[in-house]
């Protein structure tokens, strides 16, 4: 047991253990500092600090000024956002029934498989107002989305409030740090990549209206146990709400409520283990959309649920990089009745319907009952940081940045017998060769392979392998070695299995040009 000197700066409680657990540990500074004690109230120097924002910007990020120095507990306003511009064009191929037809260019391109460069033209404006204790956050976003955005059409995502919440972060209670958040927001968990993300995203993302609370308890320096739990709800969108031009958005009439809990342990701030669990209940309140069009008989689907359990392991070892692996298990029952409270699962799916369609079987063969398992793994490293070791490399120089990801999955059980036992994988690798402070070359390879089932013209269901790969090369312009703004031009070559590109009268594009730009401020 370590010893601590009792003093007016350090004190150890003699209360019982439970009290000690929350109140002991870090010393408590006295409120009134005298003379030259660090922190004594002194007027700030002329021309020095416009008061720093309550939350520092990311390393290398930028923070706006906030006028004259003020009390750190005073409320401050911080504004941020992002602008993304993006377009993609596919070079068509002549259909078999018109071999001499002129080659058409397609936008969006006729391609399938993962989009190697983010697709989405959007602008978001984020407001953060608060101090160290209380923070109010709102994000307003306008997006022009089309099928090229991760493969999904989201016409209803016009200008909208993407998130609005209030977060309370009390001062540390001994070793315990608490955080509470209430409002409308999204949460992501289980990503194997750094910064809470990765090439294939998190294995669990939750959004809706609700609240979440978290506790971090420091057992030793760098060893932190964490607990987080919350509830989010996505209410029903009435069936008659057509959202302008009806888009076929099939979650009308459905709702979902998600309960989730997370337990974590980090050692030395290098090794991270987290257990995630979420349970989403879906309620089907439809009266009309589930009618059988041929007979007008009402065939209401029963309510359903989806359970997700993920075990996240991540390891950061400088200078070798960051490695993460997250085995995940999904258990679903009538998951078609779920709205998108769990809005990202495997492969950017949104809600029970897409998880069912992609991994358990199409309608009407599967109603979303089955089990799915996956392992998402990713390794990120900087070649220059490896070579420069033991001298640290901060990113301001030539570098080759790499990310390698692999994600196999298995459909363990399904109410569609054709999908039972099916398996597949996603694979991805991205490299950025940073040649100067304003110029990089980029290289990306993505692939996806899975068992898929389609019906032939006679209605017989055929099973084969669906496969789509792409290899891309591009150039990127940026304003500094590590600036977050960039403009990128990329060429992609796609490769498909014959089963994937199986319509000779409408062949998929193989050559695609992408032009994108993003600024985060």
């Amino acid at each position, binding site marked *: 047991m370590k010893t601590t*000197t009792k003093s007016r700066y350090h004190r150890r409680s003699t209360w019982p*253990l439970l009290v000690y657990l929350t109140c002991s540990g870090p010393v408590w500074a006295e409120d009134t500092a005298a003379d030259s004690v660090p922190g004594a109230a002194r007027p700030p120097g002329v021309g*020095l600090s416009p008061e720093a924002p309550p939350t520092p910007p*990311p390393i290398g990020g930028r923070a706006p000024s906030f006028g004259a120095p003020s009390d750190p507990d005073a409320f401050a306003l911080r504004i941020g956002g992002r602008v993304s511009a993006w377009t993609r064009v596919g070079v068509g191929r002549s259909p078999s029934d018109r071999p001499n037809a002129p080659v058409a260019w397609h936008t969006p391109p006729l391609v399938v498989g993962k989009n190697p460069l983010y697709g989405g033209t959007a602008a978001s404006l984020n407001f953060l107002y608060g101090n160290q204790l209380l923070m109010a956050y709102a994000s307003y976003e306008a997006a022009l989305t089309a099928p090229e955005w991760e493969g999904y059409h989201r016409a209803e995502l016009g200008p909208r409030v993407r998130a609005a919440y209030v977060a309370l972060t009390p001062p540390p209670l001994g070793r315990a740090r608490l955080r509470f958040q209430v409002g409308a927001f999204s949460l992501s968990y289980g990503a194997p990549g750094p*910064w809470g993300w990765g090439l294939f995203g998190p294995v669990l993302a939750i959004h809706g209206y609700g609240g979440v609370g978290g506790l971090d308890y420091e057992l030793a320096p760098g060893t932190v146990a964490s607990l987080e739990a919350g509830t989010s709800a996505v209410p029903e969108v009435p069936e008659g709400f057509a959202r302008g031009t009806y888009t076929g958005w099939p979650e009308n009439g459905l709702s979902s409520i998600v309960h989730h809990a997370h337990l974590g342990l980090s050692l030395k701030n290098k090794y991270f283990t987290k257990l995630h669990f979420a349970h989403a209940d879906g309620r089907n309140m439809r009266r009309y959309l589930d009618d059988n069009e041929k007979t007008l008989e009402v065939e209401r689907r029963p309510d359903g649920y989806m359970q997700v359990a993920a075990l996240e392991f991540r390891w950061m070892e400088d200078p070798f*990089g960051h490695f993460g692996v997250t085995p995940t298990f999904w258990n679903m029952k009538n998951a078609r009745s779920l709205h998108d409270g769990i809005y990202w699962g495997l492969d950017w799916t949104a809600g029970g319907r897409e998880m069912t369609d992609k991994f358990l079987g199409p309608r009407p063969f599967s109603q979303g009952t089955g089990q799915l398992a996956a392992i998402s793994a990713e*390794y990120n490293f900087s070649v220059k940081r490896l070579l420069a070791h033991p001298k640290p490399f901060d990113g301001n120089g030539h570098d080759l940045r790499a*990310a390698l990801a692999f994600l196999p999955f298995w459909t363990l059980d399904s109410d569609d017998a054709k999908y039972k036992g099916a398996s597949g994988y996603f694979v991805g690798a991205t490299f950025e060769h940073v040649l100067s402070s304003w110029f990089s070359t980029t290289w990306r390879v993505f692939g996806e392979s899975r068992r898929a089932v389609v019906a032939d013209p006679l209605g017989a269901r055929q099973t084969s392998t669906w496969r789509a790969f792409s290899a891309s090369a591009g150039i990127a312009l940026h304003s500094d070695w590590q600036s977050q703004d960039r403009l990128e031009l990329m060429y992609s070559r796609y490769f498909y299995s014959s089963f994937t590109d199986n319509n000779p009268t409408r062949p998929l594009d193989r050559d695609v040009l992408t032009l994108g730009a993003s600024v985060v401020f």
Partner: protein
Amino acid sequence: MLGKSLLLLGACATLACSGLRYGISDADLARAREAAPRGVALFAEQCARCHGQHGEGRSSAPPVLGRDALPEYPREQNPNSGLTAGDPEALRLKARSRPAGAPARDPFRTAADLYGYVSRSMPPDEDARAAMTADHYWALVNFMLVSRGASVPSGGVTDKSAASVKF
């Protein structure tokens, strides 16, 4: 069975009672006034507002003074809070602000690592950083080292000796 339970309880109690020493102690403060008086004053001016009067840490800023402060690797940031939460593109671009796979800051292994980080990133405000000189940062680094009970060379740590002063 009872013995095992008591053993487990004892282990938990031992773990829980191992005090974390955050914030500068009386003894180390007295040493700091002798060894790094300029750093003491600069800390009060530039750092205490966010990190606490004794560097014990506050809600949004970690402990920076004390024997257990300044761990080798930084505490992981919560991806679900802050301006980039829930925005895939913003998170992807944010990751570009560091070399791929690198921690949010370089590991603190020597005084040179600490100086490198503090002089590049603190205070968070760019204008405030611009007003700081290398001498200011070395004074702060010396004070932070003394607060950990580290022995610093006479005359303080400088750019010539920093790499040899281990954490």
